[in-house]
């Protein structure tokens, strides 16, 4: 069992959990993910990027958003509760090198997995600039920790309730147009990563993105996470999750992410309505 030692609600729908998983905490590298499963015999396996790890305490940190019944169930768990299953670390670690100047762009809950990458980029000697964005002030997460890496980080909200009003590509474009940017890393909703890629393309700057696709086993067995990378079929779980943004077929990725959207929405509404009987919830 993998015990939850800390839980924080970061915003209405976003939760952070620190989980006991000593072996994963020791082995994981920036950019890797875990698959968690609650329920043992029943229920699905959920891939989540590792936001942080503490090898001394033997813990890893995950951040997730409540979108369907399964994540609703996760959010109901508290400190002291446990997951039956946590598998990892999965995926190929982020390629870290001293590029020179790296801009890290995080959107929504993508900011959480961006933290260890920004940290590793900094440690490798890069001049790291950070942009974080969300729909509104309430949804901005991890600002304090990100500031430890880039004290002058840029914040953007769709409604202007905090930081600049607009989308992350505006400050990204500004930085790129000023020149001197050697690499971009972008993690967030697919649509955001798509537009970050288009922006980077304009300035001919390489961009690394971290894809979040439908996945079951995380070991290369199901093929559910297949994506089109430069015309070749790749599996996010073993070949990724990070890819060269310029090679990603974004429209196909976004289309496939919607496979269970209708059911997710229906289940979520049921849960909110308090009739998710099989969860044993009120």
């Amino acid at each position, binding site marked *: 069992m993998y015990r939850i030692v800390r839980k924080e609600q970061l915003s209405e729908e976003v939760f952070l959990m620190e989980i006991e998983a000593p072996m994963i905490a020791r*082995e994981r590298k920036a950019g890797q993910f875990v698959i968690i*499963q609650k329920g043992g015999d*029943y229920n699905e396996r959920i891939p989540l990027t590792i936001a942080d790890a503490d090898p001394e305490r033997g813990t890893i940190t995950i951040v997730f958003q409540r979108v369907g019944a*399964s994540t609703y169930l996760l959010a109901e768990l508290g400190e002291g509760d446990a997951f039956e299953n946590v598998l990892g670390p999965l995926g190929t670690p982020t390629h870290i090198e001293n590029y020179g100047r790296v801009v890290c762009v995080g959107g929504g809950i993508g900011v959480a997995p961006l933290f260890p990458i920004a940290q590793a980029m900094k440690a490798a000697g890069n001049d790291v600039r950070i942009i974080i964005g969300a729909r509104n002030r309430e949804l901005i997460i991890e600002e304090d920790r990100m500031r430890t890496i880039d004290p002058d980080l840029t914040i953007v909200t769709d409604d202007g309730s905090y930081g600049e009003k607009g989308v992350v590509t505006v400050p990204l474009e500004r930085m790129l147009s000023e020149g001197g940017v050697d690499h971009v890393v972008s993690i967030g909703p697919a649509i955001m990563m798509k537009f970050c890629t288009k922006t980077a393309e304009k300035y001919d700057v390489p961009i690394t993105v971290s894809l979040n696709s439908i996945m*079951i086993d995380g*070991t290369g067995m199901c093929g559910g996470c297949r994506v089109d990378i430069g015309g070749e079929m790749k599996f996010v779980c073993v070949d990724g999750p990070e890819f060269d943004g310029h090679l990603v077929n974004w429209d196909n990725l976004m289309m496939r992410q919607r496979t269970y959207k209708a*059911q997710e929405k229906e*289940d979520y509404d049921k849960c909110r309505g308090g009739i998710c009987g*099989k969860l044993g919830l009120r």
Partner: protein
Amino acid sequence: MKTPDMIEKEAREVLASMPETLSPKDRAAIPHMDMPTQDPKERIRNMSEVALGYTEEEALVEASRCLQCKNKPCVAGCPVGIDIPGFISRIAEKDYSGALSVIQCSSLLPSICGRVCPQENQCQKFCTVGKMKKDVDQAVGIGRLERFVADHEAESASVPEVAPETGKRVAIVGSGPASIACAADVRRAGHSVTVFEALHKMGGVLSYGIPEFRLPKRLVEKELSKLEAMGIRFERNVLVGRTRTIRELMEEDGYDAVFVGTGAGLPKFMGIPGEDLVSVFSANEYLTRSNLMKAYDTEHSLTPYFHSHRVAVFGGGNVAMDAARTALRLGAETVDIIYRRSREEMPARKEEIEHAVEEGCNLRLLSQPVEILGDENGIVKGVVIRRCELGEPDASGRRSPVEIPGSDYTVDYDTVIVSIGNASNPLIKKTTPEIETNRRGNFIVNEETCETSLKGVYAGGDIVLGAATVILAMGQGRKAAAAINEYLKAGK
């Protein structure tokens, strides 16, 4: 089709009129007992086992059909060499625990192999009764009898004895049939055994792949609990190659030998346009959702599944049949199994094809999918199919399909399940490059010992054979175990 009641009645009548002593001619005249099954109309609405198993009377009749041939041709057809006439004669004597003991000398998992072995290509293919009748379907129902014995003696099956602890430690990677067989034999020799499984349930393909209606999971759990009772440790949620590498297991964690039984777990796709559409699934994904994550049990499980109406399954193997029949049970209105050769060439077991057809799956034969069409939301709306005809036999010995130009037509579907086979998972190869593999990524091993090119590391099952069968995997697991026990005795 005979109902279970009809078969039972027939068995009683045959038994009542059977003489005390039977001549070979009498035996050959005894009718073959059909396997009682759930009614097809009923069973597609549940996940319970399709084949119900012989009653005692049915087993006694079927056992009396065995001629007890001196040369035992059936045994030569069994990959693990079970003394088949030996266990069948004990059934005829109603000594069921004796029959189980005979099987257990050679096979660890009779309740599983009795259900999933392709007997018509193995033991039953060589059965004299079948040869006499010029029909392999008339051979003695060896698999059914094996299952009967295992089920009848399910409660009394004992835990194998374990030799005194040797202090040597063996890591087994993966928990499917090859690993189970290897783990048991290594443990019996007194070595400490830890089995590492990446998924959250043990059993490999027995758990995630083969559906409940063909292999009830309680049987798999029961077999696994026997291993635990022997003192074998199970470590779930460990992906060797990521959580730990083979080298770390041996150099840091102190394992003296490693067995790799990671199977063929990399789904193949056709490489045709449209395979990246939304409702296109590999059979692995489709089956894992249903079997491992219990999507079919909507009462208890939160696992979503795609609600299909018209399903196309590409492929003609057992996995394709499993996927097609699972789709029916998940509520599909029509299921077409699209295969490029004819029914005779289908690699699936005959019984699985028959069951699929009985349940309403439609075989679309001599048909090659060439494109999957999608709607504006990326959901499948149809498949373009090209007609084929049979040409000359190819390397597999089966007549090869030849596409007929200009014969394309389109059929409406909303879901496609691709089930054209699996390649070996590249993860261990990638993280342990010292292990030699062939062009297909299968591990190259010494045929006698199953040892890989890395000292102390052995491999067996589909990771060596490519996609094969449960019983062949078990056979390799046992062979490797014998070699590992020798290796450890020799003190490295």
